[in-house]
């Protein structure tokens, strides 16, 4: 943790956190340097809309199509794989309704798997060593901070965060 330079303020009030984010923006901090963390989604607050855009539903739909295609091919292939036709009950080898059921189930499975994988990747999960974290978040605080600020801007950023309503200002790394 200590290897990363950062300045952050802990806010109790989500409105103040909104102001804090704005203050950092006005200080000229780039979008990808601003870090916000909270123990609740705080829907309706402006900062909750950061990084809001995602193509997850389209990816899920695509995953569903791929899964469904796999399902149909599996249903088809497994019935004709044996060199001699395995007829049962006078049904066609690739029976339409059963194949449709398997196709449907694997469509859904494809969509579910794609959603989970997309979530894990785009939400940057499965990275247990996060560069910046403060366990006070779990006590209801909202963290607004800057990753890798220049040492010169330190006091300016601290002042801006404080005037936005930060309860505590903390720094990590060598600043």
């Amino acid at each position, binding site marked *: 943790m200590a290897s990363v330079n950062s300045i952050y303020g802990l806010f109790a009030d989500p409105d103040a956190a909104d102001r804090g984010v704005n203050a950092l923006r006005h200080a000229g901090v780039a979008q990808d340097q601003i870090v916000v963390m909270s123990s609740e989604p705080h829907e309706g607050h402006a900062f909750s809309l950061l990084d809001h855009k995602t193509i997850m539903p389209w990816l899920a739909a695509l995953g569903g199509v791929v899964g469904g295609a796999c399902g149909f091919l599996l249903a088809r292939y497994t019935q004709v794989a044996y060199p*001699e036709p*395995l007829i049962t*009950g*006078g049904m066609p080898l690739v029976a339409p309704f059963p194949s449709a059921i398997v196709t449907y189930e694997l469509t859904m499975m494809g969509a579910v798997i794609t959603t989970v994988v997309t979530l894990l990747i785009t939400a940057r999960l499965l990275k247990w060593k996060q560069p910046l974290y403060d366990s006070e978040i779990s006590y209801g605080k909202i963290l607004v901070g800057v990753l890798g600020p220049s040492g010169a801007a330190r006091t300016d950023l601290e002042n801006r965060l404080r005037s936005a309503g930060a309860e505590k200002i903390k720094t990590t790394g060598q600043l």
Partner: protein
Amino acid sequence: MVIDLDRCTGCEACVVACHAENNIATVGEDQAARARAMHWIRVERYYEGEFPNVKTKFMPVPCQQCGAAPCEPVCPTFASYHTIEGLNGQVYNRCIGTRYCANACPYNTRFFNFYNPVWDKPLDLQLNPDVSVRSEGIMEKCTFCVQRIKAGEVQAAAEKRLVKDGEIQPACVQSCPTQAMVFGDLSDPESEASRLARSNRATRLLDELGTFPKVTYLQRGSWHDNENA
């Protein structure tokens, strides 16, 4: 197969022959009382009329070897399937014992090995080496004595000829003292079985279910008869 019910006397020779030919285990009194007896062919007995004018009717019921068998598609492992020759094959080693086929079978002609079968020695020496001995957890049923069919085909192939009509006989057909049963190739219109199956005395068991059974029962007084009269 064609079974003439007017000839059947209910002697159950077919049942005994089937047990001997196909290594069917006798489960013992206790298990039989719990409805776990296995008879690939059974003689159903029905009574008609009021005492004392009672008439008994016998109906031997083997596996009907349906053309569109309900037991086949429900098997998840292809243990139950349709052979090229049109039999309902039962592949013992592939059976995992879901017993779904037995539920789907409208004729109740499928039998489950609830325990491992046991033969008192030296009765195991009379086991037919051409038929495998099924163990616990396996579904079994009438095969139309597929071992005899295969042996007949091998013999015919060795002699470089086709199988003759009536050359192959399942154990039940062979043992029937009144010759009520006839076995033959239904796909050959000239065979004796085909000829009898076209008779106007012909009926099929639970025909209305659309299973296309390959066992034909011949009897007088059927509605076919009245229609034609």
